[in-house]
C-alpha cells in the first residue's frame, strides 16, 4: 500500500496547484466513507483539495455554518465532563464499570499552544508506550494521533480520551447530544461512531507501531452524552466494528485513486481560476441527494446532474426503479411510447408504459 501511495503523492500535489493539503480530522476522514463510489470526491479528498473553496469559487457554496448555541453547548459539556482531571468522567466510569478508586491517572497529552504536531505526537507515543508496557495510566486526554491518508500523514484533532482498563484501551467520545431514556438520534450516534472508529484505527496503528497487539485497543467505545434533559453525563458502550471495517476498506481504496488519475488529463489541476469548472467536470461524480448532508461539492454536482436530466437527482430509489434508464427524458419517452426501446430496455419500457397507462386511467385521462 505504501508503494502505491508514494507514486500517487506527486500527482495529487499537482492537483492542488501548489495549495497546501487540507488538514484532515476525524470528521473529514469519517466522511470519506459517505459516498465511496464517487470518483470526483475520491480524487479531491485524496489530494486534500479544499472542496469548500472549490465549490464557492464555482458559485455553489454550502451554508454549512454552525450555530454558536450548538458550539457553545458542545464545548461547555465537554469542558464540564473533563474538568478537574475528568472528575465527572471518573465518577461515571467508577459507577458503570467499577473502575478502582486507585485508577485516577490523568495524562493530558496536549501541552500549551504553539507546540508542533510532531512533538505532540511524539509525546503521545512516549506516554502510550510507557502505558502499554506498564499497563499503568487511566485517562489519556488529547492524544495526538496520526493516520496516513493517501500518502499524507493526517494529524487528528485530539478531542478524545483514551481510557485504559485492565490493559485495554477504550476510546471515550464526548458528544453533547442528549441520550433520552437510553435512546439518541441514530444519525448522530452513527456520526460519533464513525469518528470514534477513526480514533480506534489510529490508536491501533500506533499500538502496533509500538510493538504491541493492536487488539489492546477495544472495538467498544464509550459515548459520553448528557442524560435525558439534564447536564448529567451518561456513558453508553458502542460497538464500532462495522464502522472500522468500512473505514479500513475505504482508506485502502483511496490509494486506488491512482487508477482514476490515469484516465485524467495529465495537466489537470484544481487551481481556483477560470478553468476550475472544466477541471472538476473532468472527474465523474456519483451524485445522490444524500450528498447534500456531507459533501461541500453537493450543490455543484446536483446542478450538473439536474442539467443533464439524470434520474439520480430524484433519489437512489427512483434511479433503481427505473433500472437501466439514466435520464428523465429517455424514461419519459419510453413511458409515453414516443421512443422505440432498444432490446435491452424492452422490459423497462413495458413497465413504464404500463405505469403510464395506469396513471392515465386513474387520473381519468388527465395525466
Amino acid at each position, binding site marked *: 500500500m505504501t508503494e502505491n501511495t508514494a507514486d500517487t503523492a506527486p500527482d495529487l500535489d499537482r492537483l492542488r496547484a501548489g495549495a497546501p493539503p487540507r488538514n484532515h480530522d476525524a470528521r473529514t476522514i469519517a466522511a470519506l466513507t459517505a459516498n465511496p*463510489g464517487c470518483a470526483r470526491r475520491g480524487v479531491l479528498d485524496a489530494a486534500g483539495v479544499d472542496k469548500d473553496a472549490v465549490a464557492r469559487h464555482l458559485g455553489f457554496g454550502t451554508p454549512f455554518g454552525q450555530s454558536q448555541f450548538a458550539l457553545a453547548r458542545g464545548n461547555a459539556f465537554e469542558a464540564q465532563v473533563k474538568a478537574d482531571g475528568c472528575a465527572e468522567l471518573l465518577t461515571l466510569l467508577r459507577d458503570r464499570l467499577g473502575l478502582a478508586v486507585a485508577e485516577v491517572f490523568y495524562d493530558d497529552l496536549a501541552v500549551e499552544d504553539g507546540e508542533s504536531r510532531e512533538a505532540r505526537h511524539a509525546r503521545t507515543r512516549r506516554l502510550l508506550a510507557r502505558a502499554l508496557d506498564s499497563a499503568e495510566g487511566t485517562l489519556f486526554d488529547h492524544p495526538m494521533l496520526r493516520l496516513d491518508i493517501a500518502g499524507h500523514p493526517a494529524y487528528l484533532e485530539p478531542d478524545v480520551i483514551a481510557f485504559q482498563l485492565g490493559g485495554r484501551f477504550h476510546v471515550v467520545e464526548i458528544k453533547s447530544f442528549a441520550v433520552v431514556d437510553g435512546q439518541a438520534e441514530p444519525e448522530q450516534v452513527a456520526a460519533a461512531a464513525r469518528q470514534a472508529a477513526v480514533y480506534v484505527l489510529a490508536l491501533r496503528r500506533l499500538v502496533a507501531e509500538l510493538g504491541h497487539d493492536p487488539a489492546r485497543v477495544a472495538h467498544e467505545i464509550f459515548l459520553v452524552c448528557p442524560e435525558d434533559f439534564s447536564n448529567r453525563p451518561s456513558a453508553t458502550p458502542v460497538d464500532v466494528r*462495522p464502522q472500522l471495517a468500512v473505514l479500513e476498506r475505504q482508506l485502502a481504496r483511496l490509494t486506488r485513486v491512482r487508477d482514476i488519475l490515469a484516465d485524467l488529463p495529465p495537466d489537470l489541476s484544481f487551481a481556483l481560476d477560470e478553468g476550475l469548472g472544466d477541471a472538476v467536470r473532468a472527474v465523474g461524480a456519483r451524485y445522490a441527494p444524500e450528498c447534500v448532508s*456531507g459533501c461541500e461539492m453537493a450543490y455543484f454536482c446536483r446542478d450538473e446532474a439536474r442539467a443533464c436530466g439524470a434520474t439520480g437527482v430524484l433519489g*437512489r430509489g427512483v434511479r433503481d426503479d427505473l*433500472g437501466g434508464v439514466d435520464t428523465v427524458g429517455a424514461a419519459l419517452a419510453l413511458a409515453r411510447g414516443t421512443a422505440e426501446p432498444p432490446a435491452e430496455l424492452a422490459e*423497462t419500457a413495458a*413497465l413504464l408504459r404500463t405505469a403510464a397507462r395506469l396513471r392515465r386511467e386513474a387520473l381519468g385521462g388527465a395525466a
Partner: protein
Amino acid sequence: MTLLDTADPSAAAAAVVDAVLADLDGTHRGVVVDSPPGAGKSTLVVRATGHLAAAGERLMIVAQTNEQVDDLVERIAGEHPDLPLGRLSAAGYLAPDRVRRPSVRVAQKADDLADRAVVIATAAKWATLSEGSWPWAIVDEAYQMRSDMLLRIAGRFERALFVGDPGQLDPFSTVEMERWAGLAWDPTRSAVSVLLAHNPELPVHRLPVSWRLPASAAPVVSRAFYPFTGFRSGTGPGDRRLEFGEPGTGSAHDRALDEAARSGWALYELPARHTPRTDAAAVAATAALAARLLARGATARSEAGARPVGADRIAVGAAHRDQVTAIRAALGPLGSQITVDTANRLQGREYDVTVVLHPLSGRRDATAFHLESGRLCVLASRHRHACLVVARAGIAELLDAHPSADPVRLGEPVKFPDGWEANQSVLAHLAEHRVAADA
C-alpha cells in the same frame, strides 16, 4: 477448532448432540442450539423429543409453519411409532397423508390432546391458548420467530430447547419503529436474541457439521455467514458427484453446468447492465439453466448412493416475488415441477442442485434488503451437490461504491455477519467459477 479439523465428523456432531441431551437433564431453564444449514437440526429435534419423552416429560413442540409442523410430525412418528402424538391445528386444516398415522391425533382443541405425550403446533396456534402448561417445549426455527411471538407462548412451558439457524433471514415487521430500539425485549428482534439478552447464562451449543452442504460449499458458506463459529461438511471432497447423461454442447449454459458439476459452484455472468428487477435476460438464463440441467439427465452420486436429479430435486431461488413469478413463467410447463421460490420460503429446504438469481444482479445501488446476509445465505446453502448463480457483471463495483451511513441505535447489538462483507466473500469465491454468457 482442533476438534473440528481432526475428529471424524460423525463423532464431532454426536458429541455436541450428547452435550445438548445432557443439558436437558440439567437444571437450565433453556438450552439453545445453533444449527448451520443442513446440520441435522430436525434429527436433533427428533432425538430430543425421544429423550424427553423417555424421561416421562410431557412435551410441546413449536414450529413456525404448518408445513414445518407436518414435517416434524412425520419424522417423529416415523422414529418413535409408539409415542402418542397430538397435532394441534387451526380450523380448516386438512391433515396431509404423511400426518395420518395411528399414533397421531389431530385436534383443534388442546383439551382433546391432553393425554398425548407430545403435542405439536405452529407458534401462531400455540399463541391462541390461554391455559395449560407443559414442563418442556422444543422451539424449532427459533431464530425465525419474532420475540413477541415467544412472549405469547412462553407462558405455556417451564423449560425449553430452542433450535434454529442464526445465519438465515431475520424476522421482520411491517411497521418501522424506533421506539423499541435498544430494549432487551424489542418485539421485532428474534426470539433467541431476546431470550439470550435476558438469560445470558443459558448454554448455547453449535452443531459443527453440515450433512447437506458438500465439501465444496461448507467452507464458503461457513466463512461468509458463520465467521465466528464455523462448521464443516460431513462429506469430503469427491464424496458428492454430479454427472450428466448427455454431454455438453459447449454452450455457455452447458459450460456453467459442467463447472458446477466439477466444482460445486458456477457463476453464470451476463454483461453488466442496470435492469429492472425482472431482468428478462437474467430471468431467461435462470430458467434455461434449470431446464437444461433437467434435460441433460443429471445423476447425483453421494454417500446415499446414486439417484437421478429430477425436477423435484432442483430449486430455483430469487430475492423478490415478481422475479419468482417471472422465472416460473419462463420455465413454462416445468414451472409447476421445479420449485421456484423466494429466499424466505426456501428456508429449511434441501435440494440436489439450486439455480439462484443473485439478489444484486442488475442493481445500481444496494439496499439493506439486498445486502441482508441471511437472504444470500439461504440461497447459497440449499444444495447437496451444486449451486449455480446467475448475475449481471458489476456486483463487485456496486459493493465497492456502497455508501456506509447506516444509523446506529444505542443498545442494539451489532448484526454479524455484515451483509456487505458476506456478499464480498461469496462473490470472491464465485469469481473463480465464472462462465460468461454467450454474446
